Protein backbone atom coordinates (compact mmCIF):
# COMPACT_ATOMS: atom_id res chain seq x y z
CA UNK A 1 0.00 0.00 0.00
CA UNK A 2 2.91 2.35 0.76
CA UNK A 3 4.00 1.91 -2.84
CA UNK A 4 0.67 3.37 -4.01
CA UNK A 5 1.16 6.55 -1.94
CA UNK A 6 4.74 6.90 -3.17
CA UNK A 7 3.43 6.70 -6.75
CA UNK A 8 0.73 9.31 -6.04
CA UNK A 9 3.17 11.73 -4.35
CA UNK A 10 5.78 11.35 -7.06
CA UNK A 11 3.28 11.83 -9.88
CA UNK A 12 1.62 14.86 -8.23
CA UNK A 13 5.02 16.58 -7.80
CA UNK A 14 6.42 15.61 -11.19
CA UNK A 15 3.25 16.64 -13.05
CA UNK A 16 3.34 20.06 -11.35
CA UNK A 17 7.06 20.40 -12.11
CA UNK A 18 6.53 19.56 -15.79
CA UNK A 19 3.64 22.02 -16.11
CA UNK A 20 5.45 24.84 -14.29
CA UNK A 21 8.98 24.45 -15.67
CA UNK A 22 8.26 26.46 -18.82
CA UNK A 23 6.15 29.27 -17.32
CA UNK A 24 8.45 29.77 -14.29
CA UNK A 25 11.73 29.58 -16.18
CA UNK A 26 10.58 32.39 -18.47
CA UNK A 27 13.71 34.31 -19.37
CA UNK A 28 15.76 31.23 -18.53
CA UNK A 29 17.24 29.02 -21.17
CA UNK A 30 14.76 27.15 -23.37
CA UNK A 31 15.27 23.43 -23.96
CA UNK A 32 17.66 22.64 -26.81
CA UNK A 33 15.99 21.79 -30.10
CA UNK A 34 16.88 18.07 -29.98
CA UNK A 35 15.34 17.67 -26.50
CA UNK A 36 12.16 19.48 -27.53
CA UNK A 37 11.81 17.13 -30.50
CA UNK A 38 12.05 14.06 -28.27
CA UNK A 39 9.57 15.50 -25.77
CA UNK A 40 7.17 16.21 -28.62
CA UNK A 41 7.38 12.57 -29.80
CA UNK A 42 7.27 10.84 -26.40
CA UNK A 43 3.49 10.92 -25.99
CA UNK A 44 2.90 9.24 -29.37
CA UNK A 45 5.39 6.44 -28.67
CA UNK A 46 4.15 5.79 -25.13
CA UNK A 47 0.44 5.99 -25.94
CA UNK A 48 0.90 3.47 -28.75
CA UNK A 49 2.82 1.16 -26.40
CA UNK A 50 0.04 1.46 -23.81
CA UNK A 51 -2.59 0.59 -26.42
CA UNK A 52 -0.64 -2.57 -27.30
CA UNK A 53 -0.05 -3.64 -23.69
CA UNK A 54 -3.64 -2.93 -22.65
CA UNK A 55 -5.13 -4.67 -25.69
CA UNK A 56 -2.96 -7.80 -25.92
CA UNK A 57 -1.12 -8.03 -22.60
CA UNK A 58 -2.08 -10.39 -19.83
CA UNK A 59 0.68 -10.34 -17.24
CA UNK A 60 3.77 -11.32 -19.18
CA UNK A 61 2.02 -12.96 -22.11
CA UNK A 62 0.23 -11.74 -25.21
CA UNK A 63 -3.37 -12.94 -25.70
CA UNK A 64 -6.20 -12.34 -28.16
CA UNK A 65 -9.48 -11.88 -26.28
CA UNK A 66 -12.68 -9.80 -26.40
CA UNK A 67 -10.73 -6.59 -25.72
CA UNK A 68 -9.52 -6.66 -29.33
CA UNK A 69 -13.11 -6.19 -30.60
CA UNK A 70 -13.69 -3.27 -28.22
CA UNK A 71 -10.46 -1.61 -29.32
CA UNK A 72 -11.34 -2.20 -32.98
CA UNK A 73 -14.62 -0.38 -32.31
CA UNK A 74 -12.65 2.46 -30.68
CA UNK A 75 -10.40 2.80 -33.74
CA UNK A 76 -13.42 3.00 -36.09
CA UNK A 77 -15.24 5.43 -33.79
CA UNK A 78 -12.19 7.67 -33.42
CA UNK A 79 -11.57 7.85 -37.16
CA UNK A 80 -15.23 8.83 -37.60
CA UNK A 81 -14.69 11.64 -35.12
CA UNK A 82 -17.09 10.22 -32.54
CA UNK A 83 -17.03 12.03 -29.17
CA UNK A 84 -14.67 10.50 -26.63
CA UNK A 85 -17.56 9.31 -24.45
CA UNK A 86 -18.90 7.24 -27.39
CA UNK A 87 -15.43 5.85 -28.15
CA UNK A 88 -14.80 4.77 -24.58
CA UNK A 89 -18.24 3.47 -23.56
CA UNK A 90 -18.77 1.82 -26.97
CA UNK A 91 -15.50 -0.09 -26.60
CA UNK A 92 -16.58 -1.35 -23.18
CA UNK A 93 -20.04 -2.31 -24.48
CA UNK A 94 -18.64 -4.21 -27.49
CA UNK A 95 -16.21 -6.09 -25.24
CA UNK A 96 -18.93 -6.90 -22.70
CA UNK A 97 -21.29 -8.22 -25.40
CA UNK A 98 -18.50 -10.29 -26.99
CA UNK A 99 -17.77 -11.90 -23.59
CA UNK A 100 -21.47 -12.56 -23.00
CA UNK A 101 -21.78 -14.34 -26.36
CA UNK A 102 -18.60 -16.38 -26.12
Amino acid at each position, binding site marked *: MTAVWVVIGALALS*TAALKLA*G*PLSLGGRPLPEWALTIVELL*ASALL*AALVVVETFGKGRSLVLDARVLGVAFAVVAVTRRAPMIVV*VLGAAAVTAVARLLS
Partner: protein
Amino acid sequence: MEGAGERRRAGIRRGLPFGIAVFAIAVSFGVLARPVMGPVAPIVMSIFVFSGAAQFGALAVLTAGGSAGAAIAAGVLLNARYLAMGLALAPSLRGRALSRAAFAMPTVDASWAAASRGDGTFDPSYMVGVSIPQYAGWVLGTIAGVLIGPRLGDPNALGLDALFPAFFIALLFDEARGRRRLVAAGGGAGIALVLTPVVPAGLPILAAAAAAVAASRRRW
Protein backbone atom coordinates in the same frame (compact mmCIF):
# COMPACT_ATOMS: atom_id res chain seq x y z
CA MET B 1 -11.62 43.35 -25.68
CA GLU B 2 -13.51 40.98 -23.38
CA GLY B 3 -12.57 40.78 -19.70
CA ALA B 4 -10.78 37.80 -18.18
CA GLY B 5 -13.94 36.73 -16.30
CA GLU B 6 -15.94 36.75 -19.52
CA ARG B 7 -13.34 34.65 -21.34
CA ARG B 8 -13.18 32.22 -18.43
CA ARG B 9 -16.98 31.78 -18.58
CA ALA B 10 -16.77 31.20 -22.33
CA GLY B 11 -14.11 28.57 -21.61
CA ILE B 12 -16.34 26.84 -19.05
CA ARG B 13 -19.13 26.58 -21.65
CA ARG B 14 -16.66 25.10 -24.14
CA GLY B 15 -15.35 22.68 -21.50
CA LEU B 16 -18.73 21.21 -20.45
CA PRO B 17 -18.85 18.41 -23.10
CA PHE B 18 -15.23 17.52 -22.24
CA GLY B 19 -16.24 17.43 -18.58
CA ILE B 20 -18.99 14.90 -19.26
CA ALA B 21 -16.66 12.55 -21.18
CA VAL B 22 -13.98 12.98 -18.53
CA PHE B 23 -16.54 12.10 -15.83
CA ALA B 24 -17.28 8.74 -17.50
CA ILE B 25 -13.59 7.95 -17.92
CA ALA B 26 -12.95 8.89 -14.29
CA VAL B 27 -15.74 6.53 -13.16
CA SER B 28 -13.90 3.69 -14.88
CA PHE B 29 -10.63 4.85 -13.32
CA GLY B 30 -12.24 4.71 -9.87
CA VAL B 31 -13.75 1.27 -10.51
CA LEU B 32 -10.49 -0.20 -11.84
CA ALA B 33 -8.20 1.52 -9.31
CA ARG B 34 -10.10 0.55 -6.16
CA PRO B 35 -9.08 -3.15 -6.09
CA VAL B 36 -5.42 -2.14 -6.60
CA MET B 37 -5.22 1.07 -4.52
CA GLY B 38 -8.07 0.88 -2.01
CA PRO B 39 -10.94 3.39 -1.75
CA VAL B 40 -9.14 6.62 -0.75
CA ALA B 41 -5.95 6.65 -2.83
CA PRO B 42 -7.65 6.86 -6.27
CA ILE B 43 -9.59 9.97 -5.16
CA VAL B 44 -6.47 11.63 -3.69
CA MET B 45 -4.63 10.80 -6.91
CA SER B 46 -7.30 12.42 -9.09
CA ILE B 47 -7.34 15.56 -6.91
CA PHE B 48 -3.57 16.07 -6.95
CA VAL B 49 -2.37 14.48 -10.19
CA PHE B 50 -5.34 15.30 -12.50
CA SER B 51 -3.91 13.55 -15.53
CA GLY B 52 -5.77 10.73 -17.24
CA ALA B 53 -2.82 9.38 -19.22
CA ALA B 54 -0.43 9.32 -16.24
CA GLN B 55 -3.02 7.88 -13.83
CA PHE B 56 -4.19 5.12 -16.18
CA GLY B 57 -0.60 4.47 -17.21
CA ALA B 58 0.62 4.11 -13.62
CA LEU B 59 -2.44 2.03 -12.72
CA ALA B 60 -1.80 -0.26 -15.69
CA VAL B 61 1.74 -0.92 -14.44
CA LEU B 62 0.58 -1.53 -10.84
CA THR B 63 -2.30 -3.78 -11.97
CA ALA B 64 0.13 -5.88 -14.01
CA GLY B 65 2.28 -6.31 -10.90
CA GLY B 66 4.95 -3.75 -11.81
CA SER B 67 7.00 -1.88 -9.21
CA ALA B 68 6.30 1.64 -7.85
CA GLY B 69 9.39 2.86 -9.70
CA ALA B 70 8.13 1.53 -13.03
CA ALA B 71 4.67 3.05 -12.39
CA ILE B 72 6.20 6.47 -11.59
CA ALA B 73 8.49 6.34 -14.62
CA ALA B 74 5.59 5.42 -16.91
CA GLY B 75 3.48 8.30 -15.51
CA VAL B 76 6.31 10.84 -15.78
CA LEU B 77 7.15 9.86 -19.35
CA LEU B 78 3.48 10.00 -20.34
CA ASN B 79 3.31 13.51 -18.86
CA ALA B 80 6.57 14.70 -20.41
CA ARG B 81 4.50 16.41 -23.09
CA TYR B 82 3.43 18.95 -20.42
CA LEU B 83 6.98 20.29 -20.51
CA ALA B 84 6.60 21.14 -24.19
CA MET B 85 3.07 22.48 -23.64
CA GLY B 86 4.31 24.67 -20.75
CA LEU B 87 7.16 26.07 -22.83
CA ALA B 88 4.69 26.92 -25.59
CA LEU B 89 2.30 28.53 -23.10
CA ALA B 90 4.93 30.55 -21.20
CA PRO B 91 5.15 33.64 -23.45
CA SER B 92 1.35 34.11 -23.20
CA LEU B 93 1.41 34.33 -19.38
CA ARG B 94 1.84 37.69 -17.64
CA GLY B 95 2.41 38.83 -14.08
CA ARG B 96 4.33 37.48 -11.10
CA ALA B 97 5.57 33.92 -10.79
CA LEU B 98 2.64 32.94 -8.55
CA SER B 99 0.05 34.17 -11.02
CA ARG B 100 1.84 32.50 -13.97
CA ALA B 101 1.91 29.26 -11.96
CA ALA B 102 -1.81 29.56 -11.19
CA PHE B 103 -2.59 29.78 -14.89
CA ALA B 104 -0.18 26.99 -15.87
CA MET B 105 -1.29 24.37 -13.29
CA PRO B 106 -4.75 23.69 -14.81
CA THR B 107 -3.15 22.81 -18.18
CA VAL B 108 -4.63 19.63 -19.65
CA ASP B 109 -4.56 18.51 -23.28
CA ALA B 110 -8.08 19.50 -24.33
CA SER B 111 -7.87 22.93 -22.63
CA TRP B 112 -4.43 23.71 -23.99
CA ALA B 113 -5.56 22.88 -27.52
CA ALA B 114 -8.83 24.84 -27.16
CA ALA B 115 -6.99 27.94 -25.84
CA SER B 116 -4.49 28.01 -28.70
CA ARG B 117 -5.12 31.07 -30.86
CA GLY B 118 -3.39 29.35 -33.79
CA ASP B 119 -0.58 31.91 -34.01
CA GLY B 120 1.57 30.43 -31.26
CA THR B 121 -0.15 32.42 -28.48
CA PHE B 122 -2.71 31.23 -25.93
CA ASP B 123 -5.69 32.69 -24.04
CA PRO B 124 -4.87 31.79 -20.40
CA SER B 125 -8.25 32.76 -18.88
CA TYR B 126 -10.11 30.76 -21.53
CA MET B 127 -7.83 27.77 -20.89
CA VAL B 128 -8.52 27.83 -17.14
CA GLY B 129 -12.26 27.98 -17.96
CA VAL B 130 -12.11 24.91 -20.22
CA SER B 131 -10.25 23.01 -17.47
CA ILE B 132 -12.79 23.73 -14.70
CA PRO B 133 -15.55 21.30 -15.88
CA GLN B 134 -12.88 18.68 -16.64
CA TYR B 135 -11.39 18.92 -13.16
CA ALA B 136 -14.85 18.65 -11.58
CA GLY B 137 -15.71 15.71 -13.84
CA TRP B 138 -12.42 13.96 -13.11
CA VAL B 139 -12.65 14.19 -9.31
CA LEU B 140 -16.42 13.53 -9.04
CA GLY B 141 -16.20 10.66 -11.53
CA THR B 142 -13.39 9.03 -9.54
CA ILE B 143 -15.45 9.28 -6.33
CA ALA B 144 -18.47 7.77 -8.13
CA GLY B 145 -16.33 4.94 -9.54
CA VAL B 146 -14.80 4.09 -6.17
CA LEU B 147 -18.29 4.03 -4.59
CA ILE B 148 -20.10 1.96 -7.23
CA GLY B 149 -17.14 -0.30 -8.10
CA PRO B 150 -17.72 -3.03 -5.50
CA ARG B 151 -21.40 -3.30 -6.52
CA LEU B 152 -20.61 -3.86 -10.18
CA GLY B 153 -19.28 -7.38 -9.71
CA ASP B 154 -16.60 -8.41 -12.19
CA PRO B 155 -15.45 -5.24 -14.02
CA ASN B 156 -14.25 -7.36 -16.94
CA ALA B 157 -17.78 -8.69 -17.55
CA LEU B 158 -18.75 -5.07 -18.24
CA GLY B 159 -15.83 -4.66 -20.62
CA LEU B 160 -14.19 -2.07 -18.36
CA ASP B 161 -10.74 -3.47 -19.20
CA ALA B 162 -11.36 -2.22 -22.76
CA LEU B 163 -11.81 1.36 -21.48
CA PHE B 164 -8.04 1.70 -20.89
CA PRO B 165 -6.94 0.98 -24.46
CA ALA B 166 -9.95 2.82 -25.97
CA PHE B 167 -9.07 5.94 -23.99
CA PHE B 168 -5.44 5.71 -25.12
CA ILE B 169 -6.59 5.18 -28.74
CA ALA B 170 -8.57 8.43 -28.54
CA LEU B 171 -5.57 10.35 -27.09
CA LEU B 172 -3.22 8.75 -29.60
CA PHE B 173 -5.41 9.70 -32.55
CA ASP B 174 -5.25 13.36 -31.48
CA GLU B 175 -1.54 13.16 -30.74
CA ALA B 176 0.00 11.12 -33.55
CA ARG B 177 -0.36 13.58 -36.43
CA GLY B 178 2.41 14.03 -38.92
CA ARG B 179 4.89 11.52 -40.21
CA ARG B 180 7.41 11.71 -37.39
CA ARG B 181 4.82 11.15 -34.67
CA LEU B 182 3.32 8.24 -36.61
CA VAL B 183 6.77 6.67 -36.86
CA ALA B 184 7.28 7.17 -33.11
CA ALA B 185 3.85 5.58 -32.44
CA GLY B 186 4.52 2.61 -34.73
CA GLY B 187 7.93 2.07 -33.16
CA GLY B 188 6.52 2.31 -29.64
CA ALA B 189 3.81 -0.23 -30.46
CA GLY B 190 6.36 -2.62 -31.98
CA ILE B 191 8.71 -2.37 -28.99
CA ALA B 192 5.84 -3.05 -26.57
CA LEU B 193 4.68 -6.05 -28.60
CA VAL B 194 8.15 -7.60 -28.71
CA LEU B 195 9.09 -6.91 -25.08
CA THR B 196 5.84 -7.76 -23.24
CA PRO B 197 6.51 -11.54 -23.12
CA VAL B 198 10.17 -11.13 -22.12
CA VAL B 199 10.53 -8.34 -19.53
CA PRO B 200 8.63 -7.39 -16.32
CA ALA B 201 5.43 -5.32 -16.50
CA GLY B 202 5.93 -1.61 -17.06
CA LEU B 203 9.29 -1.92 -18.79
CA PRO B 204 7.83 -2.39 -22.30
CA ILE B 205 6.09 1.00 -21.95
CA LEU B 206 9.28 2.71 -20.77
CA ALA B 207 11.34 1.05 -23.49
CA ALA B 208 8.92 2.51 -26.06
CA ALA B 209 10.51 5.90 -25.30
CA ALA B 210 13.43 4.68 -27.41
CA ALA B 211 11.12 4.95 -30.43
CA ALA B 212 10.69 8.69 -29.71
CA VAL B 213 14.47 9.13 -29.50
CA ALA B 214 14.97 7.16 -32.73
CA ALA B 215 12.25 9.08 -34.60
CA SER B 216 13.69 12.42 -33.42
CA ARG B 217 17.09 11.63 -34.95
CA ARG B 218 15.78 11.23 -38.48
CA ARG B 219 14.87 13.98 -40.91
CA TRP B 220 11.58 13.14 -42.60
